[in-house]
C-alpha cells in the first residue's frame, strides 16, 4: 500500500517570515524587560565578573600536594604518567639528599591542553601527591603556557581542600608503615 502525502504549499504568511520574526523579537524583548526588573531570577551569569561556584569535588586543574615542610609529596613513581590515557604527564626523577625521601621529581609537567580531565592520575597516585582541584578556568595566549610545571601545580595554597597532605612521612615511618 502506498500512502500519498500531500505537500503543503507555502502561503504568503509563512513565506514572508514577518509574523515569526515579530513573534521572536517580541519574546526576546519581553524576556529582556523581565530580566531588567528581576535580575536575581536571571538564569545566566555575567561571566567573567560572576562565576559559578562548583562543588569542591569538581575535578578541575591538577594540584600537586606538599608535605608539612613544604616539599612536594610526589615521589616520582610515574604511576600517574603510566596511567594517563592522554600521555600528558612528563616527569623527570632524581635522587634526593635525604635518604628517607630517596626519589623526588625535579621536573613535573602536565600539558593541560592534552589532558582529558579523567582523574586517572589522581587515582593512580599511591601517596596522594596529585589531586584534581576545583579550578577550571584556563586561559592563555599561546600553547606553551598550558604546560604546567611544578611551580604552577604545587604552589596554590589558597585552594579549597588545601594542597597540604595530611599524613606526614615521619609519622608514617614512626607508625612502622
Amino acid at each position, binding site marked *: 500500500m502506498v500512502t500519498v502525502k500531500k505537500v503543503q504549499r507555502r502561503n504568503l504568511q509563512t513565506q514572508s517570515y514577518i509574523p515569526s520574526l515579530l513573534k521572536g523579537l517580541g519574546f526576546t524583548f519581553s524576556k529582556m524587560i523581565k530580566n531588567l526588573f528581576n535580575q536575581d531570577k536571571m538564569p545566566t551569569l555575567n561571566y567573567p565578573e560572576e562565576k559559578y561556584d562548583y562543588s569542591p569535588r569538581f575535578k578541575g586543574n591538577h594540584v600537586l600536594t606538599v608535605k608539612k615542610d613544604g616539599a612536594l609529596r610526589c*615521589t616520582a*613513581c610515574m604511576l600517574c604518567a603510566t596511567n594517563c590515557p592522554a600521555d600528558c604527564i612528563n616527569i623527570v626523577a632524581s635522587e634526593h639528599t635525604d635518604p628517607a625521601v630517596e626519589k623526588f621529581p625535579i621536573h613535573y609537567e602536565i600539558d593541560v591542553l592534552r589532558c582529558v580531565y579523567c582523574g586517572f592520575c589522581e587515582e593512580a597516585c599511591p601517596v596522594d601527591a596529585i589531586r584534581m582541584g576545583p579550578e577550571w578556568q584556563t586561559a592563555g595566549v599561546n600553547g606553551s603556557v598550558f604546560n604546567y610545571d611544578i611551580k604552577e601545580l604545587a604552589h596554590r595554597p589558597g585552594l579549597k581542600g588545601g594542597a597540604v597532605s595530611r599524613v606526614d612521612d615521619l609519622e608514617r615511618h614512626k607508625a612502622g608503615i
Partner: protein
Amino acid sequence: MFKCTINGHEVEVPEGASVIEAFKLLKEDIAHYCWHPGLSIAGVCRLCMVQIDDGPRLHIACNTLVKDGMKITNQTEVVKEAVRWGMDFHLINHPLDCPICDQAGECGLQEQYMKYGQYDSSMAEKKVKKRKVVDLGERVVLDSERCILCSRCVRFTDEVTKTNELGIFNRGDHSEIGTFEDQPLDNKYSLNTVDICPVGALTSKDFRFQQRVWYLKDTDSICTGCSTGCSIKVYHNKEGLFRVKPVFNEKVNGHWMCDEGRDLYKHVNAPVRLKQILKSVGNEWFPLGLERALDHLNEAFSKAENISVLITAQHTVEEYKALKNWAQQLQDKTINFVYWKNNPESFDSFDGLLIRGDKNPNTKGLLEAGFEFADASVLDSSDLVLAPMPENPAVYPKYMEKLEQLSKLQTQLCLLSVSNITQHETINFADGTLAIPMKTAFEKAGHFINHQGLTQKIHKGRVIVKAALGLDELLQAIKIGKWIQPQLLKSRKTNESSKVSGELW
C-alpha cells in the same frame, strides 16, 4: 635420563638434575627466590615446596634430586598454602616502597605475589627498620629493608668473582647484607649482583631513577666491549638507550657480563653523537647533504692514487664483506688495508672470567674476511684514508693519535664516526676531510664472530641518529651515487616483548 611426573606431565631429565630444574625444563610454574642456575644451592627461601609421591612432608625442589619414576606436584592445597604463607613471611618486613623502587615492574616479589600472594595480610606489628640508600661504591646502591636475604649476591661474590665483598651480617630478622664497613663493591662484575637480586635491594646507580622499566623495550644483541661477545639485551625507549643486561648463553658468558660492557650504551645516546655529515674547510666544519657528500667522495676517490683503509675489528661480518667487494671493484687503484689493534701490549690478556684485552667484538670476523693487511706505514704515503672509526674511541687512544698525525701530513680523511669527532680539539683536519655519522652495533643488524669462532647475530634496535650509515651502506652509496635507506621505510623492528624480567631473575 630419568623419567618423572610433574603435576601429571611426564618429563625426562638428565641424572643428577634437581626437581626445580625439571620444573624449569617443563616450563611449569614454581615459586623461588634463592635458587639461581648459575650459583650453588642455598635452600633458604623455602618457596619451591613440592610434594613427592604424595608423601605428607614437603620438600624443597632445589635441593631434591630427581629419582626415576618420581611423582612430583606443587598443585596440592598443602603446597599452595605453604607457598602463600612463605610469600607472606617474605613480605611482612618488606617495605611498601614499590612506587620509588627501581625494581618495580620486574620484581620477583611483585610477580610471585600476584600468583601466590595471600592478598589480605594479617601482619599488624611494626616492621623491622633497616638501612636504606647505602652507597656501595661506584655502581651499586643497597637498600637493606627491601632485601629478602636470598643470599644470591653473597654467593655470587663468593663463587663467581671470588672477591668475597658481600656478607650477611647479624642474625634473625635483623640480618642485613652489606660489605664490611660499607667498603665499595668494586669488582669488575659488581652489577651482576643487581641483576640476580630478585627484589630492589641492590640497584644500579647508573640506571637508578632513570626510567620505570615498563617504559623500556628490549633488543637482543651482542656486547661490543671485547672479543668474548656476551649475549645481551639492550633496553631502550624513545629517549634513548638506558641499560644493558646479560642474557644467558651457555656457550659464551653463562649468566654474567662485566660492568664495562654495561657502560657501552652510553656512547650510543644522542648527546655525544655525530648527527650529520660535515666537511672540513679551513679548520671549520660545514654540514653537507648526503648527495653532495657522495659527489665529493666519488671525486676524491677518482682523484686519489693511493687509498688506504684504516680498519679495526669493530664492524660486522657483512660490512667487511662489502668492503672487500668494494675494493675488488676499484681494481685500477691501490687500496691498502691497515689493521689497527687496540692496546697491543694487553691485546691477548684475559681475566679468567669474561674480560679480554681484545676490545673488539669481531676480530675473528675481520681476519676471516680475507684481507691482505699492509703495514701501518703505508698510511703516511696515502692520498686518501677511509677510516671507519671504532665505536668507542676511548679504548683506542693510539688510533686518535694516528689521525692527528695524518692530519698534520694534510692527508684527506673520510671518517665514519659514532662520536662527534669534530669536537676534537687538538686535531686540525685537512681540507676536504669528511666526517660521516656511523651506526653503532645497536642500530644495525649483522653478525660478529667472537674469540671462540662462534658467529652471533646482532639485531637492529632503536635508531638514535637517523642520518647515520653503516660501512656497507656508505660503500653501497658511493657505488650507486645515492643512498635510499630501505630501513627507514620499514617499521623499526624491535623486540616488542614487554616481559622484561622473564628469565632474568
